């Protein structure tokens, strides 16, 4: 029977060990200086080289070579060990020898001198499986081991070891092997074995191995015995049952472009090809996860996708916001949960994609984090009606940005009250001098805050300035400018009479109106940031024309303009009921 590739190609020298540079360097220099500990603990995930390293260590301490790197793999001891017949290397499987009796036997044998080698080396694999009694018995030996014995404990779950054991060992943590190193090693083995393999096939193998060299080599072994001339990406995918990355990228493109038809068509096509919808959902989720990394500025390290797909991912990450990705992940997670036991297994996925495409902008509800403003309103307002006009709804991103495909779908469902009297918007606010426009506020805000320093009394003016710098205008209600502050402290300070009067006067002057009021509310940092961003977007836009009343301004509102002109939306009046996202205040 042929030997498994991963055993055949187990590293025989320290130089061949891949991806554990910190362990190799420490061990080789300790060996060179003759400073050998009596007990080592090798911890780390499977397939990262723990047993390999333990055997190398056993070989190196016993190697007979006078000089040159150890192990030499030439001398009698090295060869005996390589052939698995060195009596002084005792490998114990901790999982099946876990009781106190086995450890007692071990303790008796430990005291005998080695047969041929310098040191007896005990390798206890999966040492975390020992029983507590066995650990105690082992501890006695670890505390005072005979000089001719070296213990190497290897485990994948170091947290299951008692601290007393850990503290008696020199501990090394093995890490997952990076993708490129696994690919390099696979390439080396494939070449040496005469296996033809495509580079992207090897990358896919390495990816599926998640840092475990043994898994990767085993998979290569399986694939090589498949009987085909060369290992291709398709073959690996077939064996792993994996979805190739292109359809996933296509699906995400559809989501980005809001192409519901394309997305559903693609899902149907993939399912028709025999793909398990659950697997597809999982892979899609994985893809989204990778997009998140790309969005954050990291390379998509999980995907051995090639440059072309990587470029696509970058474009998609560009088009989507982190919120969109998170929402997508939530939808897909939910879908994968619902697939179990569903009569139509692909339905949850289709619904998730539909929801992602049709309602991409799930309005984050700012009202939730707005804390009630306890201060009475500074200026009595005629009616609550103005709060209901679409223009005054707090929008996280009111400024028209570059067309975002995700955001592009017009909202199809208008509130049910769309048939409300068309007169409503016209009566939103009394025409007159008191009307303040949010665009104007945005436009003038910096200037206004900056000019505060010229006001008197100076100390008060400066403190008001500092306060307002930490806040941002959120919206306008009649002639009241609502300013968001990060904390109750700020809000309270801003609502103090003197400060308020000073700020209001300055703001009225800056805006060129006779009177305006400022009301502070506390908002979450996210909202504050959104408001800041909105303002920054406005600052460089052309100053809005003065607007005599709200009905006119609705038509000139850039968001509405954009929606009607570019997206084909129809502006409809809505009933003056209180939108959920507007602040709680009821007069």
């Amino acid at each position, binding site marked *: 029977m042929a030997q498994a590739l991963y055993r055949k190609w187990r590293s025989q020298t320290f130089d061949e060990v891949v991806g554990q540079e910190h362990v190799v360097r420490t061990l080789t*220099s*300790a060996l060179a200086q003759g*400073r050998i*500990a009596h007990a080592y603990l090798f911890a780390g*995930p499977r397939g990262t080289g723990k047993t390999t390293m333990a055997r190398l260590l056993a070989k190196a301490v016993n190697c007979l070579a006078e000089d040159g790197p150890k192990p030499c793999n030439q001398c009698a001891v090295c060869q005996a060990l390589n052939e698995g017949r060195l009596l002084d290397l005792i490998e114990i499987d901790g999982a099946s020898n876990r009781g106190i009796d086995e450890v007692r036997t071990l303790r008796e044998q430990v005291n005998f001198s080695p047969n041929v080698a310098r040191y007896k080396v005990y390798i206890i694999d999966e040492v975390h499986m020992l029983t507590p009694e066995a650990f105690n018995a082992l501890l006695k030996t670890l505390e005072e081991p005979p000089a001719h014995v070296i213990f190497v404990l290897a485990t994948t779950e170091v947290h299951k070891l008692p601290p007393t054991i850990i503290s008696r060992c020199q501990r090394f943590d093995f890490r997952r092997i990076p993708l490129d190193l696994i690919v390099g090693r696979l390439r080396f083995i494939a070449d040496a074995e005469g296996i033809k393999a495509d580079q992207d096939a090897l990358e896919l193998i390495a990816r599926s191995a998640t840092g475990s060299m043994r898994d990767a080599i085993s998979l290569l072994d399986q694939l090589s015995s498949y009987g085909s001339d060369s290992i291709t990406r398709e073959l690996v995918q077939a064996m792993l049952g994996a979805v190739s990355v292109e359809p996933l990228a296509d699906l995400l493109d559809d989501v980005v472009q809001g192409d519901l038809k394309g997305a559903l068509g693609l899902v149907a096509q993939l399912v028709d090809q025999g793909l398990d919808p659950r697997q597809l959902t999982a892979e899609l989720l994985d893809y989204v996860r990778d997009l998140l990394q790309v969005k954050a500025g990291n390379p998509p390290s999980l995907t051995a996708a090639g440059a072309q797909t990587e470029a696509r991912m970058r474009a998609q990450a560009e088009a989507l916001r*982190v919120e969109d990705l998170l929402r997508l992940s939530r939808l897909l997670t939910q879908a994968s949960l619902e697939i179990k036991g569903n009569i139509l297994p692909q339905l949850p996925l289709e619904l998730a994609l539909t929801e992602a495409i049709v309602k991409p902008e799930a309005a984050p509800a700012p009202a939730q*984090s707005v804390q009630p403003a306890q201060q009475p309103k500074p200026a009595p307002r005629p009616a609550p009606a103005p709060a209901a006009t679409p223009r005054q709804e707090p929008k996280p991103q009111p400024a028209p940005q570059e067309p975002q495909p995700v955001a592009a779908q017009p909202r199809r469902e208008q509130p049910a009250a769309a048939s409300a009297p068309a007169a409503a918007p016209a009566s939103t606010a009394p025409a007159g001098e008191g009307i303040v426009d949010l665009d104007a506020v945005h436009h003038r805000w910096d200037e206004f805050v900056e000019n505060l320093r010229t006001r008197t009394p100076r100390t008060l003016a400066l403190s008001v300035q500092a306060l307002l710098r930490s806040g941002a205008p959120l919206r306008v209600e009649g002639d009241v400018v609502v300013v968001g502050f990060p*904390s109750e402290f700020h809000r309270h300070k801003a609502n103090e009479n003197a400060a308020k009067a000073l700020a209001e006067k300055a703001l009225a002057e800056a805006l060129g109106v006779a009177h305006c009021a400022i009301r502070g509310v506390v908002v979450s940092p996210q909202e504050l940031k959104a408001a800041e961003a909105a303002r920054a977007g406005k600052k460089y836009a052309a100053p809005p024309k003065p607007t005599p009343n709200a009905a006119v301004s609705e038509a000139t509102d850039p968001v509405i303009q954009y929606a009607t002109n570019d997206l084909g939306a129809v502006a409809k009046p809505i009933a003056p009921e209180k939108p959920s996202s507007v602040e709680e205040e009821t007069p």
Partner: protein
Amino acid sequence: MFYIFDGDDDFSRDEALAALKAQLGPADIVSLNTSVFDGASVSLDELRHACDSIPFFGDARLVIVNGLLARFHAPGRKKAGAAEPGEGEDADEPASGAHKEYRTRLLEYLPMLPDTTRLVFLESVLLPSKSPFVALVAQHPDKGRRQAFSLPNPRSRDGLGELAAWIRTRAKAKGARIDAPAVDALIDLIGNDLRLLDSELEKLAAYCGESPITLADVRQLVPLAREAVVWDLIDAIAQKRLRAALDTLRRLLNEGEPALRIFGLMVSEYRLLIQARTLADQGYTDDRIATRLKVHPWRLRQRMDAARRGSAESLKATYRLLLQTDTEIKTGVQEPEAALEFLVANLCR
């Protein structure tokens, strides 16, 4: 000769014992002539028998007794739980009549030890200064020797200095140099566990060779340093640095840290934040919060800024998010690693 090695620093004590053994000759001969007794059960006759024997092949007999002398100072029925070394008043009162006799006879016997015998008393607590055995050593400087080993306390300023000096000396003995940040990091991570410190230094010395040991080396090699990396992760989240947070998370995962353990550490950090915030809102000072929550003040100080920054409501929302993630991982809805990444991204918003 008899020796009293007492104190809580078992690492240095073991080293002193090893040094003594090395003086007595080749290891195999010494081991032939060594008897070890457990102080809780050994009788005086057994002990005398071992001590009065003539060495076999070697020059000296080594008799080691673990924890006998502390037994004489154990709390009597009158005063339970007061075996502290400082309780000198109690030291003269043996627990019972039998004990008293044992102690008296032992005190009489010790000066008459044969010259070829080295009797070593290993005690895991410091003997009270009024102990008659300590006095006996003072009376017979040629017959007895006492060496006290106390661990430096890393919570006190003096202890910190002592510990830092110990680390430097130790590194030097291993032929390595170590810079100040690395020393601080080792103390932060390991504290006064000298055995662990020694083993880590051994590793670091081999790794660094000629060049000095730096903070980066400590982070690379010392396993406990990963807990500190989780703090980096929380910091990155607190500062909403998505990229740094995801980077750190991926690094932790690649270094083999189980996702659930990272998650557990994150939960305990946020739990601490909420607790600290609640107490701070009730008007507790930082120091009192640290005492109440039983955390190290420096760890709390690192966290208090973050605790104060967010609103109580947002901390609660975070906690709910953690719970949701936990449920999703444990009911198999999400892969742990994916769940963690999405969680971190969510928290960074």
